[in-house]
């Protein structure tokens, strides 16, 4: 894949993938490039390569997420790794066993990669500090969801041929969104400009200061739509209404929901993206979610390739066996 950083000089040297905040543009580009080389595997009749044969990967999900878990599971299987799914208790502290107890038990069984999802921010970082295995953050609280942002970048690049210079509007609950944060880091590092849009209750303080001046905030949806190459919608959780962050989901839709009428002022080639699952009739109307601008299912497809790339890179496979990636 030809990216802005066409010279493929970066090498993956990190044990873990915890977030996009500390990745260089070159490292991000390396993941995207690797993902491009893996994408075609899923189109073959035999959807499997031996790249990670003999490696053991654990999906350690303290918070349920069928989509992300399945995507990592399939990615691992297509690389011929062994994968185990573990649904751990939400707050293990209350049950007497700590997160680190769980990890020490797994490590005693000699695993190679831990894919960690947790409702609390920072858990993958905590585990990475104590574990010899590589740790991939599969979403931690409202902090980061790096593989989601990487698949978003991959999809934008696939559809637009570039990420640099794109105007990307992220709309909805920015304050509680790990997807928004990872995308802010990733997009600005690759030279895109980000507009965040939502009511003041869902915009966290000083968020403009993230992403080296490439981020602006508006509370007016029209401003977020006008001129945008990509509209990225975030799911509004029902709990936000209970916490009085939005008076009602109906009111949210009235002010911030993407309807077909509102898309009339959008660029003719605008992309509609959503990390899923879509709250139909709230942040996104059904006819838009299923309409011609929507690339929501492409995101899912690309998620598999991106996760294969990430598993491959953190496993250190790129430093030895190149047979699958080239």
């Amino acid at each position: 894949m030809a990216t802005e950083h066409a010279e493929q000089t970066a090498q993956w040297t990190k044990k873990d993938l915890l977030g996009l905040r500390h990745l260089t543009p070159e490292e991000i580009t390396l993941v995207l490039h690797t993902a491009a080389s893996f994408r075609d595997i899923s189109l073959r009749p035999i959807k499997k390569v031996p790249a990670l044969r003999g490696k053991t990967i654990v999906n350690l999900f303290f918070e349920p997420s069928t989509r992300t878990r399945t995507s990592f599971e399939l990615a691992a299987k297509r690389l011929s790794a062994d994968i185990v799914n573990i649904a751990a208790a939400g707050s293990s502290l209350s049950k007497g066993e700590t997160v680190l107890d769980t990890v020490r038990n797994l490590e005693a069984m000699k695993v190679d990669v831990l894919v960690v999802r947790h409702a609390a921010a920072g858990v993958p970082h905590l585990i990475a500090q104590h574990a010899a295995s590589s740790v991939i953050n599969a979403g931690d609280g409202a902090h980061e969801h790096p593989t989601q942002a990487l698949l978003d970048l991959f999809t934008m690049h696939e559809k637009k041929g570039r990420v640099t210079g794109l105007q990307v509007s992220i709309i909805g609950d920015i304050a509680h969104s790990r997807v928004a944060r990872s995308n802010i880091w990733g997009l600005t590092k690759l030279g895109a400009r980000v507009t965040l849009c939502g009511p003041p209750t869902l915009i966290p303080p000083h968020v403009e200061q993230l992403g080296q001046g490439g981020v602006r905030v508006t509370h007016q949806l029209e401003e977020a739509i006008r001129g945008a190459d990509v509209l990225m919608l975030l799911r509004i959780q029902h709990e936000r209404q209970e916490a009085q962050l939005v008076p009602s989901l109906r009111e949210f839709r009235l002010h911030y929901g993407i309807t077909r009428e509102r898309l009339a002022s959008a660029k003719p080639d605008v992309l509609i993206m959503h990390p899923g699952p879509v709250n139909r009739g709230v942040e996104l109307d059904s006819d838009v979610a299923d309409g011609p601008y929507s690339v929501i299912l492409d995101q899912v497809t690309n998620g598999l390739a991106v996760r294969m790339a990430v598993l491959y890179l953190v496993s250190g496979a790129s430093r030895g066996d190149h047979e699958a990636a080239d």
Partner: protein
Amino acid sequence: MKLLIKGGHVVDPANRRDGRTDILIDRGKIVDVHASILADGAKTIDASGKLVTPGFVDLHTHLREPGREDKETIETGARAALRGGFTTVCAMPNTTPAIDQRGTVDLVHREAERLGLVTVKVVGAITRGRAGNELTDFAELFDAGCVALSDDGSAVANGFLMRRALEYAKLFGRPLIQHAEEPTLFANGVMNEGLVSTTLGLRGIPGESESVMVARDIALAELTGGWVHVAHLSSAKSVEMIRQAKRRDVRVTAEVTPHHLALTEEAIGEFDTRAKVNPPLRAEEDRQALIEGLRDGTIDCIATDHAPHTDWEKEADFDSAPFGISGLETALGVCAHTLIAPKLLTWPQLIERLAVNPARIAGIEAGTLNIGAWADVAIIDPNATWTVEPKHFSSKGRHTPFAGRQLPAAVVTALHHGAEAGR
């Protein structure tokens, strides 16, 4: 047995002493303070090159006993206090059970007296079980020796109850120590609300969670004539409100911790639970305002909020880890680094805030080197540098954001009632 501290530089702000002086101790009490004392047969401590100060008084210590002896005991806490130069600590009542009746106060006093390591004063609870619903028996608690009352760990959220508590406490002339936090604005936050919380995706606690409660309590102190002492101040707005209230002669006093003077929210870095404290470490403007408040007397004293926890609790994700750090053994070094080295305070000014003023607020005879007083003394090497190594702490709490930091000014030894630390 007489003990002579010879050749030290005595810093005793209560007696306006700041220079080379000898101190003679007999049967635990100070019997002579003089430029040069000759005492045949006395055991001599050579204090040349050292500072000799009153032992420090901590208004805000969590000893965890009874109930959480895995975190700290009165003994380990008392040993940590001595290592830090503190000869008196005021034990906070958020134990299990809460210290809300005479029996529990007596239990703490008895254990402390059995150990004889430092003086332990007790802060009783304002409400039964610290539940915020019904007042404790104030007269019984003060009669048992409590120096103040507090529901620390949480605020007295009910304004009506706080008003009655302040009115009733006037009978005893003692302060109510308020953990100033408006619980609905606190909103289960885990760190200061700002750029760092946004970056890390952690729930923020706005400074207003504190300042709104400080404003309410100032109003109630003004209404009732009662005395409110604000614990562990953290925000610039709170400091300014207390400054204005003091100008109106409202009966309000306040304390600040060494860590709030030294650090900002940046200390959290990438989810470092060793910087998770309540109130949270705030922004640089807040830190500067706290230092200025301490300099100009708006903030009366320094208190450690020593809050030890076990490893398994603190080595958790940031949301689940408990608030609080071990503070007794680093307090002097952190204050010397933050206040003395940059010449924001002189040694006499620092000792006033570590010993004299907290003793005055607690209403106890301590914090001075008066002739006739108990010989509670700290001997400090002002020129030492040392590295914070939590594994060598006397406290069971081994969590501090200062771990590995080089700090100036080491406590060489502390005498409690004339006896040397740990002997």
